[in-house]
């Protein structure tokens, strides 16, 4: 049965966009926890945690996200769980986000000059106090722009979850396309919705970066 695109279909797309946002936030949260662990392990960990964190990051950054998705989708089934695609997609995207956020945050902390560490050590601060009061407040300022930029990248990568049948906005577009066969209209709408979500984020990230560079070179 073929039918044309109707206004109610737009509601379906927007409803699915909600799921895109949800899966982005979920994987950003879990990825953030993982990323923090990776950054800390690489910076302050002993030989073995550092090795594990490095190997994890290198491995994940050499794997297509689609493969991560297939592995977690079929891997979880293999372990005997009958889980909805949401869990598999969330797990894969969290791992992906963790690897990238870990590197961003490690870089931001490393960007703090050594004199800051030395000065705070001279004030007899403990390692925790150094991080809490001196290093992290400065590192967060540096990390903010690339982190928000990565958030936009994560949103775009959630589109791949469509390929294991998770109904987010791209999958919704595919479903509507199968019913109406008006691909150009539908995928243009899908692209517009992504753009509306991502553009403010990347523009904000770019502005932050310019501001930071200006304040650093001044």
């Amino acid at each position: 049965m073929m039918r044309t695109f109707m206004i109610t279909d737009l509601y379906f797309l927007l409803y699915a966009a909600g799921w895109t946002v949800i899966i982005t936030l979920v994987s950003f949260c879990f990825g953030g926890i993982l990323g923090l662990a990776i950054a800390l392990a690489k910076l302050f960990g002993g030989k073995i945690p550092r090795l594990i964190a490095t190997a994890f990051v290198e491995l994940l950054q050499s794997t297509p996200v689609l493969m991560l998705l297939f592995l977690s989708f079929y891997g979880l089934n293999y372990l005997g769980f009958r889980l909805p695609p949401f869990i598999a997609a969330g797990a894969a995207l969290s791992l992906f986000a963790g690897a990238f956020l870990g590197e961003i945050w490690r870089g931001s902390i490393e960007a703090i000059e050594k004199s800051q560490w030395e000065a705070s050590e001279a004030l007899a601060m403990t390692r925790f106090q150094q991080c809490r009061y001196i290093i992290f407040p400065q590192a967060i300022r540096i990390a903010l722009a690339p982190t928000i930029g990565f958030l936009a990248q994560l949103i775009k990568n959630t589109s791949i979850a469509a390929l294991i049948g998770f109904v987010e906005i791209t999958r919704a577009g595919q479903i509507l396309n199968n019913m109406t066969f008006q691909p150009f209209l539908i995928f243009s709408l899908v692209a517009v919705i992504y753009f509306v979500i991502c553009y403010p984020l990347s523009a904000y990230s770019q502005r932050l970066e310019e501001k930071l560079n200006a304040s650093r070179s001044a």
Partner: protein
Amino acid sequence: MAYQMQFRSVLQRMPELMDGVILTIQLGSTAIALGLTVGVVGAAGRSYGPRWLDRCIGGYVEVIRNTPLLVQLFLVFFGLPLLGFRVSANTAALVGLVVNLGAYSTEIFRSGFQAIVPAQIQAGIALAMSPWQIFRHVIFFPALKIVYPALVGQVTLTFLSTSIVSAISAAELTSVANTIESQTFRSLETYIIVTIIYVVMTLLFRFLCWLLAQVLFGSVRDYRISRRLTPVATEVAP
């Protein structure tokens, strides 16, 4: 656990997987070569062209950078026939990847071109260099050296994202894997093997990029993907 891993039925299909590897390398290298060309032209247009050209290219870059590759591929795959071009899935995949990488590399090259101070170009003019010589020796090559790590990161991501084109039924490694998976029902085993192949290919690719940097610039620079995401950290003086 009731399930036993069996790799044999997948390993028997190794010749097909190797065909997939070759297709992926062909698609990836063509897309990278063309995409970088688009990037250099786009960045030159933005940096040295008239204002309207800068605006147009800027619009293209923002649209591509804020929409997913998968949606871009669908638009190209379904859109080109509507415009009257009958193309194969592989051609559509190539077009999509080139358009995508073109936008990202335009921005990377542009930031490199902007790092070349005008005095350098004036010095080139003073030495009676032709515009082409100035572009090649004074602008392009030093800029390439500056943005090389970021460029390698982006190109690696493009290489990895060739796996997505299987969604529009283009032939490459992932689509071969999907075929094998549906015929052997050994899903997990298939994707474990294919993931290993991807990791090996990507590590080799990054090694080649590192080697190229040695030949071009004679220096070792950090070429990791994540450096693209932390531009601030890379500019800190030692």
